[in-house]
């Protein structure tokens, strides 16, 4: 079945390759698909594993990362000519932390329950390698607008994979999606292990393998 999926994906990618002429679109595609931060580069998996036991949490976390990524990329890029090279890491971390605090305060003010559920993992976006990696690898070299697009792309790529993992873990682990029963307990016994820690590792392992299959053999050489 996966082989079939690979075939159906490939022509899409080809046509997209011709379509993505503008640099912005290319950046968007690169971040969200070709170099998907989670599935291809395997960055920032901590939060990806921890919050994906429910689809709702996954979506909020994805939104948080998109917000932080866009904001930090924009500001790192704006300040890139004024930041001394030696202290750039601290400067980047400070910018990222500011945006994370903003989001954390927003969650605490308007979505207290969600803030409680995500626990320390919102704060841990600061140490999410994706945000830091994009600031370091992209925003330091590029203009602000393009950096924002890159932040958006990577955030979306991350959010998408998070949503996929969250969907399957919640579905298989509890038989529910968004808290609504989908797989009736009459014939489906919820597989508790999927919402516990091992299920997270397993789900991500499978997702990465599926991405490897979809991307074909050349993905291996990049590793």
């Amino acid at each position, binding site marked *: 079945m996966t082989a079939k999926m690979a075939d159906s994906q490939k022509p899409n990618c080809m046509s997209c390759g011709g379509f993505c002429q503008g640099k912005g679109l290319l950046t968007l595609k690169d971040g969200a698909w070709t170099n998907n931060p989670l599935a291809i580069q*395997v*960055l*920032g*998996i*901590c*939060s990806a*594993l*921890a919050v994906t036991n429910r689809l709702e949490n996954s979506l909020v976390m994805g939104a948080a990362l998109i917000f932080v990524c866009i904001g930090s990329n924009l500001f790192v890029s704006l300040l890139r000519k004024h930041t001394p090279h030696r202290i750039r*890491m*601290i400067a980047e*971390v*400070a910018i990222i*932390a*500011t945006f*994370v*605090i903003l989001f*954390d*305060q927003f969650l605490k003010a308007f979505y207290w329950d969600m803030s409680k559920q995500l*626990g*320390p993992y919102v*704060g*841990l976006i*600061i*140490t*999410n*390698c994706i945000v*830091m990696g994009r600031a370091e690898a992209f925003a330091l070299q590029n203009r602000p607008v393009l950096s924002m697009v890159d932040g958006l792309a990577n955030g979306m790529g991350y959010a998408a994979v998070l949503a996929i993992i969250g969907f399957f873990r919640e579905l298989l682990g509890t038989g529910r999606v968004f808290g609504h029963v989908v797989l009736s307990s009459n014939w489906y016994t919820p597989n508790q*292990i999927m919402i*516990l*820690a*091992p*299920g*997270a*590792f*397993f789900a*991500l*392992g*499978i997702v*990465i*393998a*599926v991405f*490897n*299959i979809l991307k074909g*053999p050349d993905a*291996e050489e990049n*590793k």
Partner: protein
Amino acid sequence: MNETSALIILVAAILTNNILLTNFLGMCSFIACSGQIGTAVGLGTAVTFVMTTTTMLNYVIYHCVLIPLGLCHLTFIVFIVVIAAFVQFVEMFVERFSPKLYFALGIFLPLITVNCAILGASLFMIIRKYNFLQSVGFGLGAGLGWALAIILMAGLRQKMRYSNVPEPFRGVSIAMIVTCVLAMAFMGFAGMVAIQ
């Protein structure tokens, strides 16, 4: 304030509440640096040391500076700056006294700054309302637990080089699945001691 003894927290943080296998913290360097047992031991030691010390530092700063001044919303930024400064210090220290380890760890030494386990330990300490002794126990236990997990993983991955893994699963994917099995094994400790 919970009254669990620091020793119990230490044991629990290593086995039942392993920061890597149940809280998923520090995965990036876990996956990237678990190829060689030597590197894993080095990194594990560095993380244990940094984690214990930063947990203590952050505890003192949080309770003596941030709370009296009512600056709790700055927790994240203060913690991460403390950690970053401390890691810088450790980096200089390792570079001076063990250049071999320095090169083996490469980029991952500065990346301890963004190792979520370090910041995570500090944040858990605040959320679970540990006192000073408990925090030290937790920091040390979490560090040791992380080191234990990465060393186990390095051993498994060294063996795995000789096995025939299906093409798409090679690399990170199979590492995740092995971690899954490892996490399941650690779940066996669950009934032993419990914190939160």
